[in-house]
């Protein structure tokens, strides 16, 4: 069995493909930058994604948006390489969006390589469902997923087109700040088990499973007069503080944007990028009473408080960033297809999934949870024929920094490995980019169990996670040779 797995791993490595081939990243070229933002708030009630139960939006608390930054480097008049970075207030990208968007861009932006769009979800749980059949949704009075998806694709194409069309000579700077936002959400217990959002007040509580990274990686983009155009903020935390509401809400990124606009520059485009945060959330696992008291005394909601912390960190580095703007930098953008080994469903896991799926069906529950179990049964049936799953990752070099994306809710430890072994000065690790592939848990998390580390939630296991780390680092470090 061990030998089979080794053979499989070798096979997987061979399958990793470079989709977007780029020239050598070492030479500096002139930067052109464009940015734009667009409202993607639906005008009618929609089904909200991210929970097991169906929720139909009752109001719009704040707008959900998509923001794009277009980057091109030129050698004279010749394009050397490019990227369009897009952050979108949505829980994740289902297959219904990225590929159709690429097709649309081929028509709306002829000559533009649509594979160079880096599409990231902020993970707000108070945004639209974009696939049919995921939830039982009333037909009347609700904008259906297919309709919203078409609307979203049009809006994304529009904002990408605008950012691309507006590009002009500009500059970039990179800085590191700090903000305590993401909190590890997996409590561990005396019996070795772990639980997402588990109680920390019971006698058997022993600690929090993993760490948190409170570093904020930031990229600032400037126009030729050094006026700020956009800031990309990589926070190791999904934006899901108000995740269970029945409203449309961009979660803490709305507050970040509002406060940055009020305190730094009203025209600044703000891209929110979630870091490696599969085991992280903004929810407090302990110290709740202290946090509540502080909020009351400040007169803030918790999303406003997160907005305050992030904005304070942005202000803390803004002048430093302004002092170190680069207009000619090494730039490269590689898009790689990686075939990662799937997490094998064991006989025991299969039996459990079958039992649960049948029990839910008997109860008449045809919702997301039943399918969560059923998909595990389906996976078991095809796992020997299809032992790998292909995922796309984007690896970029911009000056001294690297950007590495993945389509998972990726556990913090993998991000730490990437950052600690990367040759880049700063490494932006961005999860939930491209079609979503579920949680990517670590070995210790799988041993502990709990929602985010059980087989139902993990299409790829820790072996695949390690392979993702190695492949990502290989590409980053090649770009920095």
């Amino acid at each position: 069995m061990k030998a089979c797995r080794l053979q499989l791993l070798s096979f997987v490595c061979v399958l990793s493909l470079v989709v977007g081939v780029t020239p050598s990243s070492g030479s500096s070229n002139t930067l052109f930058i464009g940015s734009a933002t667009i409202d993607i708030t639906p005008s009618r009630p929609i089904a909200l994604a991210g929970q097991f139960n169906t929720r139909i939006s009752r109001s719009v608390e704040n707008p959900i948006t998509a923001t794009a930054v277009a980057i091109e480097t030129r050698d004279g008049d010749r394009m050397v390489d490019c990227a369009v970075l897009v952050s979108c207030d949505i829980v994740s990208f289902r297959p219904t969006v990225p590929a159709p968007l690429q097709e649309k861009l081929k028509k709306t932006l002829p000559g533009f390589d649509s594979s160079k769009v880096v599409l990231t979800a902020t993970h707000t749980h108070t945004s639209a469902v974009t696939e049919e059949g995921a939830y039982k949704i009333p037909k009347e009075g609700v904008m259906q997923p297919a309709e919203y998806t078409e609307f979203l694709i049009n809006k994304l194409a529009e904002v990408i087109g605008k950012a691309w069309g507006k590009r002009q000579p500009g500059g970039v700077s990179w800085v590191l700040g700090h903000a305590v936002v993401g909190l590890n959400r997996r409590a561990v217990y005396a019996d070795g088990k772990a639980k997402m959002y588990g109680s920390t007040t019971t006698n058997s509580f022993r600690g929090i499973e993993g760490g948190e990274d409170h570093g904020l990686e930031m990229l600032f983009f400037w126009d030729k007069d050094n006026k700020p155009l956009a800031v990309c903020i990589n926070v190791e935390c999904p934006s899901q503080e108000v995740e269970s509401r029945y409203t449309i809400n961009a979660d803490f990124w709305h507050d970040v944007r509002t406060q940055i606009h009020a305190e730094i520059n009203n025209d600044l485009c703000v891209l929110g990028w979630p870091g490696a945060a599969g085991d992280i959330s903004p929810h407090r696992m302990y110290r709740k009473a202290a946090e509540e008291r502080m909020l009351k005394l400040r007169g803030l909601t918790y999303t406003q408080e997160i907005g305050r912390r992030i904005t304070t960190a942005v202000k803390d580095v803004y002048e430093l960033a302004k002092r170190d703007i680069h207009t000619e930098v090494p730039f490269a953008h590689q898009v790689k297809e990686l075939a990662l080994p799937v997490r094998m469903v064991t006989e025991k896991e299969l039996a459990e999934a079958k039992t649960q799926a049948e029990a839910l069906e008997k109860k008449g529950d045809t919702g997301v949870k039943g399918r969560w179990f059923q998909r595990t049964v389906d996976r078991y049936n095809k796992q020997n024929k299809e032992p790998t799953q292909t995922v796309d990752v984007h690896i970029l070099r911009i000056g001294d920094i690297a950007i590495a994306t993945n389509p998972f809710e990726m556990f913090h430890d993998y991000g730490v490995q990437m950052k600690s072994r990367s040759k880049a000065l700063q490494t932006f690790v961005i999860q939930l980019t491209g079609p979503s592939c579920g949680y990517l848990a670590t070995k210790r998390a799988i041993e502990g169990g709990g929602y985010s580390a059980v087989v139902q939630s993990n299409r790829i296991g820790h072996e695949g996670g390690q392979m993702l780390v190695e492949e990502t680092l290989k590409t980053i470090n090649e770009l920095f040779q």
Partner: protein
Amino acid sequence: MNANIGRRQFMNVSLVGGTGLFIGGLGRISQGAETAQAGSLLVGAATTSITPDKPVPLDGHRGLRISNKVESPVTATALALESCNGDKTIDAAIIVSCDIVAIRQDIMEQVRSKVKPRLPDFDVNKLFLCATHTHNAPVTLEGRYTLPESGVMKPSEYSEFMTTRVADVVVESWQKRRVGKVGWAQGQAVVAQNRRATYADGTAKMYGATNIPEFRGMEGYEDHNLDVLFFWDQQNHLIATAVNIPCPSQDAEGGLSIHADFWHPVRQMLHDRYGKDLLVLGLAGAGGDQTSRPQYGKTADDRMRKLRGLTRLEEVARRIVNGWEDAFEIARKDIHNDIILRHCVKQIELPHRKVTEAEVAEAHKEAEKYAKIPAQRWNYRWHQAVVERYEAQKAGTEGPYKMELHVVRLGDVVITTNEFELFTDYGVQMKARSPAVQTFVIQLAAGSYGYLPTERAVRGGGYSAVIQSNRIGPEGGQVLVEETLKQIKELFQ
């Protein structure tokens, strides 16, 4: 109300209210008043230099280091608290933060014996010292290193000097106490970094490489919250602040200079902004597995410091002061004078970590290797102590360790102490299960008894989680948590 009010009454309350225990001949260990009675708060604070004027051996490393200069003064800062009902004392506490690696054996006793005759109406068991853990302060315990015969202030001489200075500052703080006010708040400061790297084979290493393919992640949590207490006089002048950070101050450890590590620039920055009379108590939280030095992303961190024109210590201090100011803004909105102050002092029994056959064999071999090399005195003692423990364990004479525990309730917050380099997970457990709005966990207080690792750390091994470094293991750690929480809950009943 002045300092003389209520001393006799305080003594009475302490003796009547306490169902106290005894610690090794040092007298009664007191509990706080039984009733959760609010009282008027009296506050006094004082600080003193404990910087030696001669070269000293520096504590904290395996190798001998003799100081050759003073980069920044090492200090002791005392905070005296008393709550009164009219002219009756309800309860009291004196907390002293010292720029020193640990409160070694006999230091508490020396200070108490010097304070007792000078403050006959103060129960000296309600006094505790805690260490900031700077690794650039003097050794206070004889026998740890082989020292030169001359030209160096010996540990016993320094201890005498230091404990006299600390006793002076304790007395001064108590005598200066006046009606005052207190506020508390929480801030954030990204300072503590877990220093235990884990690897694919399941092992862990303190300060282990994070840039190798076998690296899998940091072992545990980091707590980036900052618990802060603020004290004002009646005229609303900020007179003292106590800052609890789950991180030891050993950023610049090494070298041959005396310095207070990051607490020095913290004090400087706060003095620049809030006046030089503001007294700052640095309280190290549960940080046995923490350091303030980045374990990855070092080049980015260095670049940012260069852009700011700061040293590492200044950058750490900048973050702490930013977090402190954030908390201060809130604390000043919610200031208290009539407040519950209860101080429980208890001796708790912790089981020792058992030495296995394999561990004693290894320790014996290593001890023999170092026994006759004077320069390896520290290493010899580190291993030999395991051999001696094993013998005591085998003879059945070891018994549990009797740790002095302080739990101080001040309004909605609680302060709790332990003698260890306590792994952060234990601090998280205490904070998560405590009924207090904020729980200050102070390690290396009222004594020093080595690292206290978690079960997962013991499994991973590495310097801070091996038998030589752990007299108490995870089993004792859990007893510490439960006993601490029991006392906290009693104070909040």
